[in-house]
């Protein structure tokens, strides 16, 4: 009996012995939602690739990678997100953290991770404040790096670049010298700066702002807003939406046969499920995105195909957890150490060719924006397919299309 008990105890202890040879990374995200699911999918791809290759080389030995899946429930509850970070650090004893999505939650999660001096590679939240904290107090926040997307200010730079191209199409095809733009922004923290920038910049870009509409992020009916936008004679519906309102907008524009084209940030339109959710009505809806089968970097096309083959969906931008984990691996192998403090200086100097961007960090630990670095792409729904139309110089992009008039 005693022997049996000792055997059971030995078996129970065995995983602990193996765990000493592993590196644990927590993948944080709203796992009941697409964003969190793609956090996890991207991380799984990275883990499998690393472990298949024998693990991560740390000095003279190889360490296997173990992922800890943590549902932050951050879309519904910021406190839940903070608790999730606390839990993975104190209970699961993870070495590093990747993920996060909603700005309000990531701001809170960042604090917890910094309290514990844990390397946290953000994949999902765009608010500038996350990086500004690093600049203001490097000693405390140096463990934070943002992998994707680019910070909100840079998203703005990209979005105005793409908007210029969309306006160019309208000028050419419709002979409208000063395209009319209706701004539709859900009422949320992340849209405030973008709306102000749009109101200030559009007239300078020879576009007329015909109005600002701010529905709730969870609105499922925007017919009243669209009626008013049609009356204002808008050529472009410039969107900043992340919630289901993006689906309602696309679908109802299609149902009304609106002549205006929607472009901007529409998080729902980035997903494969968008076309079905909009009941196939959202033709010509366009948005900024991260991945498509175009040659953003030499790795993009092969990786997007591999992702699609494995999961039967296209990667959302939160699948950049793959790049986040690969960055950690590269940093560990260069530093020959697993300590967060040793990895920070390596990451600060790194130049990493990712799947959606070439990542180099600035002094705020944000990815440096620009052609050939991190910029994002413009995609448009055309007859049920999401096709990339911007940047124009990238191999594989398709022309932007306007609704027929």
């Amino acid at each position: 009996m005693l022997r049996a008990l000792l055997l059971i105890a030995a078996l129970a202890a065995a995983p602990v012995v193996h765990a000493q040879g592993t590196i644990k990374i927590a993948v944080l995200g709203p796992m009941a939602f697409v964003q969190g699911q793609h956090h996890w999918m991207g991380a799984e791809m990275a883990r499998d690739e690393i472990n298949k290759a024998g693990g991560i080389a740390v000095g003279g030995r190889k360490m296997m990678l173990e992922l800890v899946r943590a549902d932050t429930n951050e879309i519904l509850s910021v406190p839940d997100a903070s608790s999730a970070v606390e839990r993975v650090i104190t209970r699961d004893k993870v070495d590093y953290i990747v993920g996060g999505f909603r700005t309000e939650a990531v701001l809170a999660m960042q604090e917890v991770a910094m309290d514990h001096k844990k390397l946290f590679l953000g994949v999902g939240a765009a608010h500038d404040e996350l990086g500004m904290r690093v600049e203001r107090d490097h000693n405390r926040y140096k463990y934070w790096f943002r992998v994707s997307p680019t910070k909100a200010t840079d998203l703005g730079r990209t979005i105005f670049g793409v908007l210029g191209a969309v306006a160019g199409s309208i000028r050419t095809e419709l002979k409208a010298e000063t395209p009319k733009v209706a701004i539709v922004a859900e009422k949320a923290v992340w849209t405030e700066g973008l709306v102000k920038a749009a109101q200030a910049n559009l007239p300078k870009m020879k576009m007329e702002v015909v109005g600002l509409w701010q529905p709730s992020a969870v609105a499922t009916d925007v017919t009243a807003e669209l009626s008013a936008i049609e009356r204002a004679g808008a050529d472009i519906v410039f969107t900043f939406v992340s919630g289901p309102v993006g689906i309602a907008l696309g679908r109802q524009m299609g149902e009304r046969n609106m002549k205006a084209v929607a472009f901007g940030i529409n998080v729902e339109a980035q997903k494969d499920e968008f076309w079905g959710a909009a009941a196939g009505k959202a033709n010509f809806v366009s948005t900024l995105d991260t991945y498509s089968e175009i040659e953003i970097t030499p790795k993009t096309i092969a990786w997007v195909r591999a992702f699609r083959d494995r999961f039967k969906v296209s990667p959302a931008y939160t699948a950049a957890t793959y790049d986040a984990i690969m960055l950690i691996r590269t940093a560990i192998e260069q530093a020959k150490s697993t300590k967060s403090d040793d990895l920070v200086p390596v990451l600060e100097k790194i130049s990493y060719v990712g799947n959606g961007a070439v990542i180099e960090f600035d002094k705020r630990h944000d990815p440096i924006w620009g052609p050939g670095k991190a910029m994002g792409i413009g995609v448009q729904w055309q007859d049920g397919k999401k096709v990339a139309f911007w940047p124009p110089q990238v191999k594989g992009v398709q022309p932007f299309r306007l609704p027929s008039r």
Partner: protein
Amino acid sequence: MIQDILVSGLISSSVYALLAIGFSLIFGVARIVNIAHTAFYMLGAYLFYSLLVQLGINFAIAGLLAVAGVTALSLACYKLIIEPLREHESAVLISTIALAILFQELMLLFYGGHYLGIPSTMDGAVSIAGVSIAYQRFVILVVAFVMLAATWYLLNHTRLGLAIRATANDLEVANLMGMNVHHVALATVAFSAALAAIAGVVVAPVFVVDPYMWLGPLVTMLAIVVLGGLGSVKGSVIGAFIIGFVEAITVFAVPSGAFLKGAVALSIMVAVLLLRPQGLYGVVFEEER
């Protein structure tokens, strides 16, 4: 702009009316503040989605089955959870909140946090007085008005309607007069849940189906029934049209404050209650006690 407001207001008001009438009926007859009422609306939309999109059942049959399924579920909930607690109003209130959250979490579990779309039954749009209206929205309007008329007929021209009105007027007297108030309550619960499910089925091809779609209408519906007077069907209809049109006016008058449409509607409710605490057609609270 006036025609836009009329069309938008009319469509949203009619959906609100369908929801508010059911809620009022249950409160009037059984004194149940049923927070799960709009969860039945959400379940109607989900069931319709599954039958139509996942199982490929014909549109009309899928709609009928969805309404029947939700009605049956509401009866089961009433018999198993609400009826045993009916003497304890607070417990009933909390139970209905728990039920609604349970339904939400179950939908999250089975369907995930994805936003689902249901194809329209009728494609295309018509332009009336310069306002473009999708045909599908006409369906909402027609179904809503048919159901409102059916409710009016049921309440005013049938024995069941008479029993419902009598029970709503004075439950104890109705009971003393030999009426089976439990059966009346059961019938009312079924009818109310059916109305909520019908609302869910008709809006599903126009809106987005998601596990949280019950929350927004819940707040609006509560505002409507309090504005119209708790338990008053007439008040609920009028309240629905007031709130629906106020929301439409807010969107058109203050485009950048469109997200405030719910807050404006609630403010109007508060203003009316300050002047008339019992709502437009409700009984005075003191008498209630």
